[in-house]
C-alpha cells in the first residue's frame, strides 16, 4: 500500500526546473532512498513534501490525502516528520526541550490551562515526557538530556534531530542525509537505528543519502535523480548498476 505518492511533481525557480515530472510511490513500511549527484533535486523534493515550496505542477498524496492547499505547519500533524541536511535544532534550548517541541503536534491543552498550569496541563506534560523518554532510550541519549544543544558535537546533534522527528510519532520520516558529517562508527549506529525505526517502530522512511554503503544496507528501494529527472528506480543493486546512474556520477563515454 502506498503511503506517499508523488504524481509527476515539478517545481521551477525562474527558468530552472529543479524537479521535473518526478513520480514515485513510497510504500507503507519500507525504506525508500533518493540518490543523485549534487543539485539533482533531492532536497528540493523534501522541501516540496514539507510544502516549503509550492508545486509548479503535479500532485502529492499522503495517506490518501492530497497535500495541495495545506500550510507547511499542517504537514507534521498528518504524520510527516523530517530532519534537515544542515541540522536545524533549537540551539538555545536543552535536548529535552527540543524533543518536547517535537510533541507539539499532540498539544491538547488550551492557552488558559497552560497559563495557570492546571492539572490538565500537568498531566499533558507528564504524558509528553514519557513519550520523549521512550525516544531518548531508543536513541541512547540519556547522557545528553539536560545539555544545551549549542554545546553538543555534530554527531550528537544529528541524533538529537532524528530523535526530535521521532517524538512527533510520525507515519513517514524524511531523513535528509542522515550520515553526512558522521564518522564510520556513527554511520554504523545510524544504519542500525534506521533499520530499527522501520522494523521496531514501524515507521516508513524516505531518505536522501550519498553514502552508498548505508544506502544498500538499509534501503528497500532506491530512486536515482539527475538534473531534477528520474533516471532509475529499483532495488539498490539494480540502481547502482544502471548505466544512466553510472553516467550521472562518473560521466559518460562522451
Amino acid at each position, binding site marked *: 500500500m502506498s503511503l506517499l505518492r508523488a504524481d509527476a511533481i515539478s517545481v521551477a525557480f525562474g527558468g530552472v526546473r529543479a524537479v521535473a515530472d518526478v513520480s514515485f510511490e513510497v510504500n507503507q513500511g519500507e525504506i525508500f532512498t533518493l540518490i543523485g549527484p549534487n543539485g539533482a533535486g533531492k532536497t528540493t523534493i523534501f*522541501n516540496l513534501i*514539507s510544502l*516549503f515550496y509550492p508545486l509548479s505542477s503535479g500532485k502529492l498524496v499522503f495517506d490518501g490525502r492530497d497535500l495541495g492547499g495545506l*500550510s*507547511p*505547519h*499542517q*504537514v*507534521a*500533524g498528518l504524520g510527516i*516528520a*523530517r530532519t*534537515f*541536511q*544542515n*541540522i*536545524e*535544532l*533549537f*540551539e*538555545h*534550548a536543552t535536548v*529535552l*526541550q527540543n524533543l*518536547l*517541541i*517535537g*510533541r*507539539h*503536534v499532540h*498539544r491538547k*491543552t488550551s*492557552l488558559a490551562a*497552560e*497559563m*495557570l*498550569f492546571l492539572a490538565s*496541563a*500537568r498531566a*499533558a*506534560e*507528564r504524558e*509528553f*515526557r*514519557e513519550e520523549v*523518554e521512550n525516544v531518548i532510550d531508543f536513541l541512547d541519549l540519556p547522557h545528553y538530556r539536560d545539555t544545551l544543544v*549549542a*554545546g553538543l558535537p*555534530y554527531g550528537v*546533534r544529528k541524533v538529537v534531530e532524528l530523535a*526530535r522527528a521521532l517524538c*512527533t510519532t510520525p507515519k513517514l520520516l524524511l531523513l535528509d542525509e542522515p550520515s553526512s558529517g558522521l564518522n564510520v562508527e556513527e554511520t554504523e549506529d545510524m544504519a542500525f537505528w534506521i533499520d530499527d525505526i522501520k522494523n521496531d517502530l514501524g515507521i516508513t522512511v524516505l531518505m536522501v543519502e550519498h553514502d552508498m554503503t548505508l544506502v544498500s544496507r538499509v534501503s528497500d528501494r532506491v530512486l536515482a535523480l539527475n538534473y531534477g529527472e528520474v533516471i532509475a528506480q529499483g532495488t539498490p543493486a539494480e540502481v547502482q548498476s544502471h548505466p544512466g546512474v553510472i553516467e550521472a556520477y562518473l560521466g559518460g563515454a562522451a
Partner: protein
Amino acid sequence: MRFLFKTDYDQDLRLLQHGIRKFWYAVLLALLLAAPWMLPEYFTSQLTFILIYGIVGLGLMLLSGYTGLISLGHAAFLAVGAYTEAVLAAHGWPFPLSLAMAALLSAAVGIIVGLPALRVKGIYLSIATMAFGFIVEEVMARWESVTGGNSGLQVGVVSLFGFKLDSEESFYYLCLALAVAITLVMLNLLRSPTGRAFVAIRDSEISAQSMGINLARYKTTSFALSAAITGIAGALYAHKLRIIAPDQFTVLQSIELVLMVVVGGLGSIHGAFFGAAFLIALPQVIVLAKDYLPDAIGQATGLQPTVFGLILIGFVLFEPLGIYGRWLKIRTYLGMFPFYRRGMFKRQKAFMKSERLK
C-alpha cells in the same frame, strides 16, 4: 556542589528545583513584603517603579527574549494601557475591570501590530514597530477630547473593592502582587507547549514549522500576550505617575525598554527584573556620582544617555546574557566554591548554522 537525584518527571516540572532555592525565594519574598516598613517612603516608591518596569520587562522579554521578535514600539503598548486606565478610571470603572480592559485593548492593538510581524523579520520588524510607536505618540497628542493632548491627563488613585490605595505602601503591594502573578503566568507558559513554541520560533522558524508550529498563530499570540502584560504595567504606571502625557511614551522610551531587557539578560525572567532595577537605579547613581566628577563631565548635558550607551555596548561585547548571565556565573562560583574553573562559561562559536531557506 549540589547533585539533584531525579526520581520523578514531576521534579522537572517544578518551578523551584530544590529546597535551597525555595528558601532563597522565600527570603526574597519576605524582604519584598517587609520593604515598605524597613525603607523610607522614597525607596518604596522607587521599588514600585522597579516592579512596574519589571512587568514591562516581562512583556518585552516574552516577545523579544523568547519569541525573538524585536519591538521598538513597546512604549506605545504602555501608553495604550495607561490611557485606557486613565480614561476608564475617570469614568468610575472599578479597578479590576479597567485593568482587564487595559490589558485587552493593548492585546488587541498588539495583534494589529503583530500582523506585519508575520511577513517581516529582524530589522524590518523593528522599523515597523517603531513606526507604530510614532503613530500612537501622535494619536495621543492629537486626540485631545480623550487624551487631553499634550497637556496630559490626571489619574486618580486606585480604589480596590472600596478601599482607596492612596498610600505609597498600599500601591506598592498592589504592584508586587501583580508582578508576582504575571511572573508565575510567564513561568507556567514557558514550561508548556506554547512557551516552547515561542522558543522554537526564536531559534529556527523553518524547523518550528516542520514540527507543526503555526508561525502566524504563535507570533500573534506572543504579540498579544506581550502587549497585554505591557498594558497592565501601563495601567499601574498611570496610577503611579498620577499625570500622563504623550512625552512619556516616546520612541526613546521604547528604546530604553529594549535596553532594559538586553542589559537584564535576554531570554530570562530574572533579566526583566534585573534590567528594571538597573534602569531605575542608574540615573540615581549618576546623580550621586555627579558631585564627585569634574564639572566639565558632571554638568555636561547628555551624560545619562552616554553612560547608558556605554553600558549597553559593554554588555553586548562582554556579557551578552546581561546581568542575569553575570548572576549565573556568580551563583555557580559560590555553589562550586572552591572548585570553580576559569573558562567554565567560555563561549563557544558554532559554525554549523544553515542559512538555507531563510
